[in-house]
Protein backbone atom coordinates (compact mmCIF):
# COMPACT_ATOMS: atom_id res chain seq x y z
CA UNK A 1 0.00 0.00 0.00
CA UNK A 2 2.81 2.37 0.71
CA UNK A 3 4.63 4.40 -1.90
CA UNK A 4 7.62 4.51 0.38
CA UNK A 5 8.77 7.87 -0.84
CA UNK A 6 9.42 9.11 2.66
CA UNK A 7 11.90 6.61 3.77
CA UNK A 8 13.93 7.89 6.63
CA UNK A 9 17.53 7.19 5.88
CA UNK A 10 18.62 7.46 9.51
CA UNK A 11 16.20 4.79 10.77
CA UNK A 12 16.46 1.04 10.58
CA UNK A 13 13.88 -0.22 8.10
CA UNK A 14 10.88 -1.69 9.86
CA UNK A 15 7.25 -1.12 10.76
CA UNK A 16 6.12 1.24 13.49
CA UNK A 17 3.49 0.53 16.15
CA UNK A 18 0.63 1.99 14.12
CA UNK A 19 1.49 -0.12 11.09
CA UNK A 20 1.73 -3.29 13.14
CA UNK A 21 -1.60 -2.47 14.82
CA UNK A 22 -3.36 -1.93 11.49
CA UNK A 23 -1.84 -5.15 10.18
CA UNK A 24 -2.93 -7.13 13.26
CA UNK A 25 -6.51 -5.80 13.11
CA UNK A 26 -6.62 -6.48 9.36
CA UNK A 27 -5.42 -10.06 9.90
CA UNK A 28 -8.13 -10.66 12.50
CA UNK A 29 -10.86 -9.23 10.28
CA UNK A 30 -9.72 -11.15 7.24
CA UNK A 31 -9.42 -14.35 9.22
CA UNK A 32 -12.93 -13.94 10.64
CA UNK A 33 -14.35 -13.29 7.17
CA UNK A 34 -12.55 -16.29 5.70
CA UNK A 35 -13.74 -18.59 8.51
CA UNK A 36 -17.38 -17.48 8.20
CA UNK A 37 -17.37 -17.84 4.41
CA UNK A 38 -15.53 -21.17 4.44
CA UNK A 39 -17.91 -22.64 7.03
CA UNK A 40 -20.93 -21.34 5.14
CA UNK A 41 -19.60 -22.62 1.82
CA UNK A 42 -18.87 -26.04 3.33
CA UNK A 43 -22.31 -26.38 4.92
CA UNK A 44 -24.20 -25.00 1.93
CA UNK A 45 -27.03 -27.37 0.94
CA UNK A 46 -28.91 -25.17 -1.53
CA UNK A 47 -32.24 -26.01 0.08
CA UNK A 48 -35.27 -23.94 -0.97
CA UNK A 49 -36.38 -20.92 1.02
CA UNK A 50 -38.28 -21.94 4.15
CA UNK A 51 -40.34 -19.05 5.39
CA UNK A 52 -41.77 -18.69 8.87
CA UNK A 53 -43.99 -15.81 9.85
CA UNK A 54 -44.43 -14.50 13.36
CA UNK A 55 -47.05 -11.97 14.44
CA UNK A 56 -46.13 -9.46 17.11
CA UNK A 57 -48.28 -7.94 19.84
CA UNK A 58 -51.12 -5.86 18.36
CA UNK A 59 -51.51 -2.28 19.46
CA UNK A 60 -54.71 -0.27 18.99
CA UNK A 61 -54.44 3.51 18.75
CA UNK A 62 -57.17 5.87 17.54
CA UNK A 63 -59.26 2.90 16.30
CA UNK A 64 -56.35 1.65 14.19
CA UNK A 65 -54.85 -1.76 14.95
CA UNK A 66 -51.11 -1.92 14.37
CA UNK A 67 -49.61 -5.39 14.06
CA UNK A 68 -45.84 -6.05 13.80
CA UNK A 69 -44.97 -8.91 11.46
CA UNK A 70 -41.69 -10.80 11.31
CA UNK A 71 -40.72 -13.18 8.53
CA UNK A 72 -37.64 -15.36 8.65
CA UNK A 73 -36.04 -17.74 6.17
CA UNK A 74 -34.48 -20.97 7.43
CA UNK A 75 -33.65 -22.26 3.94
CA UNK A 76 -30.44 -21.78 1.97
CA UNK A 77 -31.93 -19.92 -0.97
CA UNK A 78 -33.07 -16.33 -0.86
CA UNK A 79 -36.79 -15.57 -1.15
CA UNK A 80 -37.59 -12.56 -3.31
CA UNK A 81 -40.77 -10.47 -3.52
CA UNK A 82 -42.22 -12.19 -0.47
CA UNK A 83 -45.93 -11.52 -0.02
CA UNK A 84 -47.63 -12.34 3.25
CA UNK A 85 -51.32 -11.96 3.80
CA UNK A 86 -52.56 -11.18 7.29
CA UNK A 87 -56.20 -11.91 8.09
CA UNK A 88 -58.20 -10.32 10.90
CA UNK A 89 -61.58 -11.64 11.91
CA UNK A 90 -63.64 -9.57 14.30
CA UNK A 91 -67.40 -9.13 14.89
CA UNK A 92 -68.34 -11.53 12.11
CA UNK A 93 -66.35 -9.54 9.55
CA UNK A 94 -63.02 -10.28 7.89
CA UNK A 95 -60.20 -7.93 6.92
CA UNK A 96 -57.06 -8.69 4.96
CA UNK A 97 -53.78 -6.81 4.71
CA UNK A 98 -50.83 -7.57 2.45
CA UNK A 99 -47.27 -7.36 3.68
CA UNK A 100 -44.53 -7.31 1.00
CA UNK A 101 -40.78 -7.72 1.46
CA UNK A 102 -38.21 -7.37 -1.35
CA UNK A 103 -35.92 -10.11 -0.07
CA UNK A 104 -35.64 -12.45 2.88
CA UNK A 105 -32.02 -13.67 2.86
CA UNK A 106 -31.03 -17.20 3.85
CA UNK A 107 -31.09 -17.46 7.61
CA UNK A 108 -32.24 -13.84 7.66
CA UNK A 109 -35.19 -11.98 9.12
CA UNK A 110 -37.24 -9.02 7.93
CA UNK A 111 -39.74 -7.02 9.98
CA UNK A 112 -42.65 -4.80 9.10
CA UNK A 113 -46.11 -3.81 10.19
CA UNK A 114 -49.69 -4.00 8.92
CA UNK A 115 -52.67 -1.99 10.10
CA UNK A 116 -56.42 -2.57 10.20
CA UNK A 117 -59.31 -0.25 11.02
CA UNK A 118 -60.52 -1.38 14.48
CA UNK A 119 -63.63 0.61 15.37
CA UNK A 120 -64.60 -2.03 17.93
CA UNK A 121 -61.34 -1.52 19.83
CA UNK A 122 -60.66 -5.27 19.82
CA UNK A 123 -57.69 -6.99 18.17
CA UNK A 124 -59.94 -9.83 17.01
CA UNK A 125 -58.61 -13.09 15.63
CA UNK A 126 -55.33 -12.42 13.80
CA UNK A 127 -53.58 -15.01 11.67
CA UNK A 128 -51.29 -15.41 8.68
CA UNK A 129 -53.04 -16.12 5.37
CA UNK A 130 -51.22 -16.99 2.18
CA UNK A 131 -47.46 -16.63 1.80
CA UNK A 132 -45.76 -16.46 -1.58
CA UNK A 133 -42.32 -15.61 -2.94
CA UNK A 134 -40.20 -15.67 -6.08
CA UNK A 135 -36.82 -17.32 -6.49
CA UNK A 136 -34.36 -14.62 -7.52
Amino acid sequence: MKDRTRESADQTPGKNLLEWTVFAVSCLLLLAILIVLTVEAATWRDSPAKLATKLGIPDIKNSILLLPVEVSNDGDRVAAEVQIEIVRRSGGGEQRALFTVDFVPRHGTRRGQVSFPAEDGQPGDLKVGSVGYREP
Partner: protein
Amino acid sequence: MNFSHHRTVSESALEYGRGIAGGLIFSLPLLYTMEVWWAGFLLNPSRILLYVISTFGLLLLYNRFAGLRRDASMVEVVIDSVEELGIGLIIAALMLWLTGQIDIDTGALEMTGKVVMEAMTVAIGVSVGSSQLGGGNDGDEGVSGHDEKEESEYVPQTAIALCGAVLFAANIAPTEEVAIIAMESSPRKILLLALGSALAAAGVLHYSGMHGAERHVARDTLFVKVRGVLTTYAVALAGAASCLHFFGGLDGQPPEIALSMCVVAGVPAALGASAGRLLLQLGSPK
Protein backbone atom coordinates in the same frame (compact mmCIF):
# COMPACT_ATOMS: atom_id res chain seq x y z
CA MET B 1 11.82 -10.02 8.24
CA ASN B 2 13.47 -7.55 5.88
CA PHE B 3 11.79 -4.21 5.31
CA SER B 4 12.71 -1.61 2.76
CA HIS B 5 11.52 1.45 4.63
CA HIS B 6 10.77 3.14 7.91
CA ARG B 7 8.13 5.76 8.53
CA THR B 8 7.15 7.72 11.60
CA VAL B 9 3.69 7.17 13.05
CA SER B 10 2.50 10.50 11.64
CA GLU B 11 3.78 9.59 8.17
CA SER B 12 2.00 6.25 8.36
CA ALA B 13 -1.20 7.94 9.56
CA LEU B 14 -0.99 10.28 6.56
CA GLU B 15 -0.68 7.35 4.17
CA TYR B 16 -3.58 5.50 5.78
CA GLY B 17 -5.58 8.71 5.45
CA ARG B 18 -4.76 8.86 1.76
CA GLY B 19 -5.75 5.22 1.43
CA ILE B 20 -9.09 5.79 3.15
CA ALA B 21 -9.75 8.79 0.90
CA GLY B 22 -8.90 6.70 -2.17
CA GLY B 23 -11.10 3.87 -0.99
CA LEU B 24 -14.08 6.18 -0.59
CA ILE B 25 -13.45 8.09 -3.83
CA PHE B 26 -13.11 5.02 -6.03
CA SER B 27 -15.88 2.93 -4.49
CA LEU B 28 -18.50 5.42 -3.39
CA PRO B 29 -20.87 4.60 -6.29
CA LEU B 30 -20.80 0.94 -5.22
CA LEU B 31 -21.50 1.76 -1.60
CA TYR B 32 -24.71 3.43 -2.79
CA THR B 33 -25.75 0.65 -5.18
CA MET B 34 -28.44 -1.69 -3.90
CA GLU B 35 -27.55 -4.50 -6.30
CA VAL B 36 -24.24 -4.81 -4.46
CA TRP B 37 -26.02 -5.03 -1.10
CA TRP B 38 -28.25 -7.74 -2.55
CA ALA B 39 -25.30 -9.64 -4.00
CA GLY B 40 -24.08 -10.05 -0.44
CA PHE B 41 -26.96 -12.39 0.40
CA LEU B 42 -27.98 -13.63 -3.04
CA LEU B 43 -24.67 -15.23 -3.96
CA ASN B 44 -23.38 -18.61 -2.91
CA PRO B 45 -20.82 -18.20 -0.05
CA SER B 46 -18.19 -20.09 -2.07
CA ARG B 47 -18.36 -17.46 -4.82
CA ILE B 48 -17.98 -14.66 -2.26
CA LEU B 49 -14.98 -16.52 -0.86
CA LEU B 50 -13.49 -16.77 -4.37
CA TYR B 51 -14.10 -13.04 -4.79
CA VAL B 52 -12.04 -12.33 -1.66
CA ILE B 53 -9.20 -14.55 -2.89
CA SER B 54 -9.25 -13.00 -6.38
CA THR B 55 -9.20 -9.48 -4.97
CA PHE B 56 -6.28 -10.40 -2.75
CA GLY B 57 -4.45 -11.67 -5.84
CA LEU B 58 -5.22 -8.42 -7.68
CA LEU B 59 -3.90 -6.39 -4.74
CA LEU B 60 -0.72 -8.44 -4.71
CA LEU B 61 -0.24 -7.71 -8.42
CA TYR B 62 -0.92 -4.01 -8.00
CA ASN B 63 1.32 -3.65 -4.94
CA ARG B 64 4.05 -5.63 -6.63
CA PHE B 65 4.07 -3.65 -9.86
CA ALA B 66 2.71 -0.21 -8.99
CA GLY B 67 2.35 0.39 -5.29
CA LEU B 68 5.82 -0.42 -4.07
CA ARG B 69 9.46 0.08 -4.83
CA ARG B 70 11.31 -2.62 -6.58
CA ASP B 71 13.26 -3.32 -3.39
CA ALA B 72 10.11 -4.17 -1.44
CA SER B 73 10.10 -7.79 -0.39
CA MET B 74 7.21 -10.16 -1.10
CA VAL B 75 6.44 -10.17 2.63
CA GLU B 76 5.90 -6.40 2.51
CA VAL B 77 3.66 -6.78 -0.52
CA VAL B 78 1.56 -9.37 1.34
CA ILE B 79 1.39 -7.24 4.50
CA ASP B 80 0.28 -4.19 2.53
CA SER B 81 -2.37 -6.21 0.68
CA VAL B 82 -3.75 -7.60 3.96
CA GLU B 83 -3.85 -4.10 5.44
CA GLU B 84 -5.75 -2.80 2.40
CA LEU B 85 -8.32 -5.58 2.71
CA GLY B 86 -8.67 -4.84 6.42
CA ILE B 87 -9.14 -1.12 5.87
CA GLY B 88 -11.59 -1.90 3.06
CA LEU B 89 -13.63 -4.13 5.37
CA ILE B 90 -13.77 -1.44 8.07
CA ILE B 91 -14.76 1.34 5.64
CA ALA B 92 -17.41 -0.84 3.99
CA ALA B 93 -18.89 -1.94 7.34
CA LEU B 94 -18.97 1.64 8.60
CA MET B 95 -20.59 2.99 5.43
CA LEU B 96 -23.17 0.19 5.34
CA TRP B 97 -24.05 0.86 8.97
CA LEU B 98 -24.26 4.62 8.42
CA THR B 99 -26.53 4.12 5.40
CA GLY B 100 -28.76 1.72 7.35
CA GLN B 101 -27.91 -1.42 5.38
CA ILE B 102 -26.60 -3.38 8.35
CA ASP B 103 -27.35 -3.17 12.02
CA ILE B 104 -27.14 -5.27 15.15
CA ASP B 105 -30.13 -7.38 14.02
CA THR B 106 -28.64 -8.28 10.64
CA GLY B 107 -27.72 -11.95 10.43
CA ALA B 108 -24.01 -12.87 10.47
CA LEU B 109 -24.03 -14.33 6.97
CA GLU B 110 -25.97 -11.43 5.46
CA MET B 111 -23.70 -8.92 7.17
CA THR B 112 -20.56 -10.75 6.08
CA GLY B 113 -21.77 -10.98 2.48
CA LYS B 114 -22.76 -7.34 2.24
CA VAL B 115 -19.55 -6.08 3.83
CA VAL B 116 -17.33 -8.32 1.71
CA MET B 117 -19.02 -7.46 -1.59
CA GLU B 118 -18.50 -3.77 -0.88
CA ALA B 119 -15.10 -4.04 0.78
CA MET B 120 -13.23 -5.63 -2.09
CA THR B 121 -13.57 -2.61 -4.39
CA VAL B 122 -12.92 -0.31 -1.43
CA ALA B 123 -9.67 -2.21 -0.81
CA ILE B 124 -8.53 -1.66 -4.42
CA GLY B 125 -9.39 2.01 -3.99
CA VAL B 126 -7.38 2.10 -0.76
CA SER B 127 -4.42 0.59 -2.58
CA VAL B 128 -4.61 3.02 -5.49
CA GLY B 129 -5.32 5.96 -3.20
CA SER B 130 -2.43 5.37 -0.83
CA SER B 131 0.10 5.00 -3.62
CA GLN B 132 -1.22 7.53 -6.11
CA LEU B 133 -2.94 10.34 -4.18
CA GLY B 134 0.21 11.45 -2.41
CA GLY B 135 2.36 14.32 -3.58
CA GLY B 136 5.39 12.16 -4.18
CA ASN B 137 7.48 15.19 -4.95
CA ASP B 138 10.13 14.79 -2.31
CA GLY B 139 12.78 14.19 -4.86
CA ASP B 140 13.07 10.50 -4.15
CA GLU B 141 13.03 8.84 -7.51
CA GLY B 142 13.70 5.49 -5.93
CA VAL B 143 14.05 2.82 -8.51
CA SER B 144 11.57 4.52 -10.82
CA GLY B 145 13.98 7.19 -11.85
CA HIS B 146 15.56 5.53 -14.84
CA ASP B 147 14.06 5.71 -18.30
CA GLU B 148 15.28 2.54 -19.84
CA LYS B 149 12.43 0.79 -21.60
CA GLU B 150 12.24 -2.92 -20.94
CA GLU B 151 10.38 -5.71 -22.62
CA SER B 152 9.70 -7.06 -19.11
CA GLU B 153 7.36 -4.09 -18.61
CA TYR B 154 4.66 -5.95 -20.56
CA VAL B 155 3.51 -8.14 -17.67
CA PRO B 156 3.45 -5.33 -15.05
CA GLN B 157 1.57 -3.10 -17.51
CA THR B 158 -0.96 -5.86 -18.13
CA ALA B 159 -1.40 -6.38 -14.38
CA ILE B 160 -1.91 -2.66 -13.79
CA ALA B 161 -4.36 -2.50 -16.71
CA LEU B 162 -6.35 -5.28 -15.02
CA CYS B 163 -6.48 -3.26 -11.79
CA GLY B 164 -7.75 -0.21 -13.68
CA ALA B 165 -10.29 -2.29 -15.58
CA VAL B 166 -11.69 -3.90 -12.43
CA LEU B 167 -11.81 -0.58 -10.58
CA PHE B 168 -13.94 0.97 -13.34
CA ALA B 169 -16.00 -2.09 -14.35
CA ALA B 170 -16.93 -2.85 -10.74
CA ASN B 171 -18.87 0.38 -10.59
CA ILE B 172 -21.39 -0.66 -13.24
CA ALA B 173 -21.16 -4.48 -13.31
CA PRO B 174 -23.60 -5.04 -10.42
CA THR B 175 -26.34 -2.86 -11.96
CA GLU B 176 -29.26 -4.26 -13.93
CA GLU B 177 -28.64 -1.67 -16.62
CA VAL B 178 -25.81 -3.75 -18.07
CA ALA B 179 -28.16 -6.67 -18.77
CA ILE B 180 -30.88 -4.35 -20.08
CA ILE B 181 -28.49 -2.64 -22.52
CA ALA B 182 -27.13 -6.03 -23.63
CA MET B 183 -30.62 -7.42 -24.22
CA GLU B 184 -32.03 -4.36 -25.96
CA SER B 185 -29.07 -3.54 -28.19
CA SER B 186 -28.72 -5.05 -31.66
CA PRO B 187 -25.59 -7.15 -32.35
CA ARG B 188 -24.42 -4.36 -34.67
CA LYS B 189 -24.51 -1.83 -31.84
CA ILE B 190 -22.74 -4.24 -29.50
CA LEU B 191 -20.02 -4.61 -32.13
CA LEU B 192 -19.78 -0.82 -32.41
CA LEU B 193 -19.47 -0.60 -28.63
CA ALA B 194 -16.61 -3.11 -28.74
CA LEU B 195 -14.81 -1.26 -31.54
CA GLY B 196 -15.44 2.07 -29.85
CA SER B 197 -14.01 0.74 -26.57
CA ALA B 198 -10.86 -0.52 -28.28
CA LEU B 199 -10.46 2.78 -30.13
CA ALA B 200 -11.01 4.72 -26.91
CA ALA B 201 -8.32 2.61 -25.25
CA ALA B 202 -5.95 3.35 -28.17
CA GLY B 203 -6.80 7.05 -27.94
CA VAL B 204 -6.15 7.23 -24.21
CA LEU B 205 -2.89 5.31 -24.53
CA HIS B 206 -1.37 7.00 -27.57
CA TYR B 207 -3.18 10.22 -28.45
CA SER B 208 -4.37 11.76 -25.20
CA GLY B 209 -1.05 13.11 -23.99
CA MET B 210 -2.06 11.93 -20.53
CA HIS B 211 0.41 11.94 -17.65
CA GLY B 212 2.65 8.93 -18.04
CA ALA B 213 2.16 8.54 -21.80
CA GLU B 214 5.55 10.02 -22.56
CA ARG B 215 7.19 7.63 -20.15
CA HIS B 216 5.27 4.43 -20.80
CA VAL B 217 4.04 4.33 -24.40
CA ALA B 218 5.39 7.24 -26.46
CA ARG B 219 8.40 5.34 -27.78
CA ASP B 220 6.53 2.15 -28.61
CA THR B 221 6.92 0.74 -32.12
CA LEU B 222 3.77 0.20 -34.19
CA PHE B 223 3.79 -3.51 -33.34
CA VAL B 224 4.12 -2.81 -29.62
CA LYS B 225 1.37 -0.18 -29.84
CA VAL B 226 -1.05 -2.58 -31.54
CA ARG B 227 -0.15 -5.33 -29.10
CA GLY B 228 -0.63 -2.93 -26.20
CA VAL B 229 -4.09 -1.82 -27.36
CA LEU B 230 -5.26 -5.36 -28.04
CA THR B 231 -3.91 -6.58 -24.72
CA THR B 232 -5.49 -3.65 -22.89
CA TYR B 233 -8.88 -4.36 -24.44
CA ALA B 234 -8.60 -8.09 -23.80
CA VAL B 235 -7.71 -7.37 -20.18
CA ALA B 236 -10.65 -4.95 -19.98
CA LEU B 237 -13.04 -7.65 -21.21
CA ALA B 238 -11.57 -10.13 -18.73
CA GLY B 239 -11.94 -7.61 -15.90
CA ALA B 240 -15.53 -6.84 -16.95
CA ALA B 241 -16.41 -10.55 -17.19
CA SER B 242 -14.90 -11.21 -13.75
CA CYS B 243 -16.85 -8.38 -12.15
CA LEU B 244 -20.08 -9.52 -13.82
CA HIS B 245 -19.47 -13.08 -12.64
CA PHE B 246 -18.68 -12.13 -9.06
CA PHE B 247 -21.79 -9.94 -8.80
CA GLY B 248 -23.94 -12.71 -10.29
CA GLY B 249 -24.78 -10.77 -13.44
CA LEU B 250 -23.96 -13.63 -15.83
CA ASP B 251 -26.01 -16.23 -13.94
CA GLY B 252 -28.66 -17.80 -16.12
CA GLN B 253 -27.85 -15.65 -19.14
CA PRO B 254 -27.55 -17.28 -22.58
CA PRO B 255 -24.03 -17.10 -24.07
CA GLU B 256 -24.80 -14.33 -26.58
CA ILE B 257 -26.30 -12.06 -23.90
CA ALA B 258 -23.43 -12.87 -21.53
CA LEU B 259 -20.95 -11.87 -24.24
CA SER B 260 -22.88 -8.67 -24.95
CA MET B 261 -22.87 -7.86 -21.22
CA CYS B 262 -19.09 -8.25 -21.16
CA VAL B 263 -18.82 -5.80 -24.07
CA VAL B 264 -21.17 -3.33 -22.35
CA ALA B 265 -19.28 -3.50 -19.04
CA GLY B 266 -16.09 -3.50 -21.09
CA VAL B 267 -16.59 0.14 -22.10
CA PRO B 268 -15.65 1.62 -18.71
CA ALA B 269 -13.24 -1.26 -18.19
CA ALA B 270 -11.33 -0.35 -21.37
CA LEU B 271 -11.08 3.27 -20.27
CA GLY B 272 -9.99 2.17 -16.81
CA ALA B 273 -7.44 -0.27 -18.18
CA SER B 274 -5.87 2.21 -20.59
CA ALA B 275 -5.88 5.17 -18.20
CA GLY B 276 -4.68 2.83 -15.44
CA ARG B 277 -1.65 1.81 -17.49
CA LEU B 278 -0.61 5.45 -17.64
CA LEU B 279 -1.83 6.94 -14.37
CA LEU B 280 -1.68 4.12 -11.83
CA GLN B 281 2.05 3.67 -12.14
CA LEU B 282 3.43 7.19 -12.31
CA GLY B 283 5.51 6.59 -9.26
CA SER B 284 6.06 2.93 -9.80
CA PRO B 285 9.03 0.94 -10.86
CA LYS B 286 9.77 0.46 -14.51
